[in-house]
């Protein structure tokens, strides 16, 4: 299993029945493929629908039904369309149970940086700032390191997307919860030791006695 698959599979276990879920583009979107059959969640697309289904193919395509990436998608029986004002009412108003996003950096205070890449073009925050402020649970799903450097910091260096909003970080190596005391490791990959995990992480990790292995 490649690292992204591990992350997507583990994130998928976080979803509970009847939740409204918003997935960021890229890796977060992959998590939809691994949700247990018994768990029924509804997906929101912030451009204006709930009940979003898979990408539309062939005669499923309706040019008036797109996702937030501009791709043609389907909509399920439980779905509804609405305008941007309502869509962000759902988001900022706390009606979205879980949002899953990638990050450039996240820190032990739950701060998140994922919208400005230094020296690169600034694409704009789109709906990300509202999503992480509004959703009841914010899960950052990302590789633990980039080019050998930890993406989990004591304090974010890049411009923030939001302050203190991240609830959980899921990487290919660990599942961590943001607590008032700092980053609490809930699960660790069987492939590494606690010391190795800490060595690969800039932020100080809290290791509980009941630490378990990460199952995917």
């Amino acid at each position, binding site marked *: 299993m490649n690292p992204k698959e591990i992350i997507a599979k583990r994130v998928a276990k976080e979803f509970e029945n009847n939740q*409204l879920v918003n997935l960021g583009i890229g890796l977060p979107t992959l998590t939809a493929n691994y949700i247990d059959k018994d768990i029924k969640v*509804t997906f*929101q697309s912030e451009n204006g*629908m*709930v*009940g979003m289904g898979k990408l539309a193919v062939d005669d499923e395509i309706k040019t008036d039904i797109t996702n937030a990436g501009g791709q043609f998608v389907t*909509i*399920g*029986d*439980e*779905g*509804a*369309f*609405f305008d941007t004002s309502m869509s*962000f*009412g*759902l*988001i*900022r*108003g*706390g*009606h979205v149970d879980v949002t899953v996003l990638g990050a450039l950096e996240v820190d032990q205070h739950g701060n998140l940086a994922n919208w400005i890449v230094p020296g690169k073009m600034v694409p704009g925050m789109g709906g990300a700032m509202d999503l992480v*402020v*509004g959703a009841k649970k914010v899960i950052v799903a990302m590789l633990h390191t980039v080019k050998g450097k930890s993406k989990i910091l004591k304090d974010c260096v890049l411009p923030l997307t939001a302050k203190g909003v991240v609830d959980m970080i899921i990487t290919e190596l660990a599942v961590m919860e943001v607590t008032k005391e700092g980053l609490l490791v809930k699960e660790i990959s069987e492939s590494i030791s606690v010391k190795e995990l800490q060595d690969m992480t800039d932020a100080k990790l809290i290791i509980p006695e009941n630490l378990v292995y990460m199952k995917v």
Partner: protein
Amino acid sequence: MSKVVSLNKVKGLFKDDMTIMIGGFLGCGTGEALIDTLIESGAKNLTIIGNDTSFVDKGIGRLIVNNQVKKVIASHIGTNAETGRLMNEGKLEVELSPQGTLIERVRAGGFGLGGILTPTGVGTLVEENKEKITVEGVEYLLELPLRANIALIKGSVVDDFGNTIYKGTTKNFNPMIAMASDIVIVGSQTLVEAGTLNKDMIMTPGVVVDYIVREGK
């Protein structure tokens, strides 16, 4: 688990001292079966948020007459003499909010806004105890969000996932109230299967609805 339940089931949700938002404009768009159920529950000391207190024999008006209400937040109470009488006797607290302000406060509560600035009420009694904020030389009142424990919604056509269509002028406060309450109960005039509604007509998506009961016609 289906969201469609009996009126008896939702009766158990009503408790003393709760804040309840109720849709309707002079009773048009109010679920009377839900009002019956709230009366049967006997819940007391309620704070009711709605456009008006309707008439003595209709909608919110019946809760007033039945002495279940401690406080009302509304834009108009003139069609229900009991509201005024209880208020004058000190038995009912009434907070009046301009209609456009009231709906924005409910919307702010449901849409995660900290408040809105409105020109309505500046220079009147409405501005008492409120912060005034000047933007580009114009004075506005800062009006704060409202939320409730339970919302009672009336839907004209509702599917069993809770997606709701409101016909004619029954919309009024219903769609916003459904966004601003912890528990949302929809009284369905007509109940259909999920997937059969026109998805461009749904004003309240089922994802915010907790319970669906059957309203009469």
